[in-house]
């Protein structure tokens, strides 16, 4: 039987761009160039490797996001995924992580899945909780923050390098996993891959298709509110010296002045 893998990827504002907030205090997604979150490339890579090691597997890329998020889907398809699903709806603007997990869970169920693969965190919101929320909603095991993963005979195993310990984890499919940036560099799309991606199917879904009411998502459906966003004042210019033999002494003077020594 075919192994159905769904990879959740997010389209995010470029971290090296000038990221900021829109007037309604949501992340401004219009003025800054977007891209497939670098951390989700690792998820695509692991999904492709798992698929390559399976007898028969199909990799679907799933994103919830604005029209431009299609770029992220194309990139993942050109890396080698088979098809894509794009959930897009004007009412989604301002949805928080709880709402996003609802939309993704419904879309995953509609698509059909044995394994859901996520990145460790999005590079804009960077909460790193969506995979756990998906597991909770879908009622399946979470095997998250893996730096190594494999799937065999309906079982997923992996290594989680935590703060306090390294753990080896195991769960039966269906399951939700997330992989870290320690899991192995993502492949670059080949020219052939880029050409092939243009012909791969991308399904668009809206909230109606997923039986979700508009007031369950968006700013109104959000269970949190941002009241204020202020730009951190630029740090005041410090003292910079060039070492001509005295640099260490000068630095020690500074540290002593600040009572660090």
């Amino acid at each position, binding site marked *: 039987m075919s192994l159905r893998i769904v990879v959740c990827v997010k389209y995010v504002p470029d971290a090296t761009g000038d990221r900021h907030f829109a007037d309604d205090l949501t992340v401004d997604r219009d003025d800054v160039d977007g891209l497939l979150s670098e951390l989700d490339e690792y998820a695509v890579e692991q999904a492709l490797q798992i698929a390559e090691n399976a007898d028969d597997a199909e990799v679907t890329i799933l994103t919830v996001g604005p029209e431009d998020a299609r770029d992220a889907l194309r990139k993942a398809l050109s890396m080698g995924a088979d098809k894509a699903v794009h959930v897009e709806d004007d009412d989604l603007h301002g949805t928080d*992580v709880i709402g996003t997990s609802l939309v993704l869970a419904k879309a995953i169920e509609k698509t059909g899945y044995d394994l859901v693969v996520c990145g460790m965190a999005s590079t804009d919101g960077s909460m790193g909780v969506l995979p756990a*929320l998906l597991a*909770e909603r879908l009622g*399946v095991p979470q095997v998250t923050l893996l730096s190594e993963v494999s799937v065999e005979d309906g079982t997923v195993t992996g290594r989680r*390098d935590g703060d306090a310990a390294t753990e080896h984890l195991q769960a039966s499919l269906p399951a939700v996993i997330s992989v870290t940036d320690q899991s192995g560099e993502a492949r670059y799309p080949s020219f052939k891959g880029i050409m092939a991606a243009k012909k791969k199917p991308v399904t668009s879904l809206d909230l109606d298709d997923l039986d979700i009411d508009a007031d369950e998502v968006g700013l109104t459906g*959000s*269970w949190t509110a941002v009241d204020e966003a202020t730009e951190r004042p630029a740090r005041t210019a410090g003292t*910079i010296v060039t070492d001509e033999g005295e640099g260490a002494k000068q630095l020690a003077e500074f540290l002593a002045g*600040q009572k660090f020594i």
Partner: protein
Amino acid sequence: MAEVLVYVDHVDGAVRKPTLELLTLARRIGDPVAVHLGAGADTAAATLAEYGAARVLTADAPEFADYLVAPKVDALQAAYDAVSPAAVLLPSSAEGKEIAARLALRIGAGLITDAVDLEAGDSGPVATQSVFAASFTTRSRVTKGTPVITVKPNSAAPEAAQAAGSVEQLSVTFGETSTGTKVVSRTPRESTGRPELTEAAIVVSGGRGVNGAENFSVIENLADALGAAVGASRAAVDAGWYPHTHQVGQTGKTVSPQLYIAAGISGAIQHRAGMQTSKTIVAVNKDAEAPIFELVDYGVVGDLFQVLPQLTEEIKARKG
């Protein structure tokens, strides 16, 4: 006064510092009730009481260690049902955030992660967060249900405030899905003898400029002279020169020490994300154009292999 649940991070009853910070912040909102899962509650209770826990709810079961995250969600939910708190606070560790998220979903409540400050507001707790690689500060609230909030280490100075800290058994029934992810083996990390990276008052980090695992002793020697923790950039970690657990930045640890010293680190946005909120920042880099110099209080343009050993000697001499 309303009660606030505080999830305890501990190793066999030895309470970790971020929990003391949580108790301190919780007292701004209500009376802290600590939730201690696993062994060692009696040992922990003394410390928890010292920092203001009126009650300590505890449960111990093999499930907590044998399965990932979910059993702890069941237990925290049991505590939530028993207490009906005004808020639930957890440490912003990987596990703390996952437990928080699943609990929030179950109890139909809004979730805020990675707060760096917390205060009481007219309509519930107000959380300060640092976003977009710490270039913005936001103030947020939970608008539905009991706020579930995770707080980053070093967000408050722990203040003692003796309370009763009476230990009460919490009864927990594990749900069907809680034993889905088996922890097959667990290897605790060996202690380096240095302060914990996220808790340290001083952090000395090395980057690609350190140019080899064997050269990291230059960083370690300076750290030891200052009583500091050791950090590393992703470039140094990816090269295999230093363990990933020491990585500072977006996909590593966020640190906010009194003093951060960056040596041989250029200051990429993803690195800044993890250290920009440090009180005092110092850099040693041989490239005067390196972006890290935009952040510093004091910068030395020079070779780290010259400057760091001399600085280490100078510090040792001054400390006598």
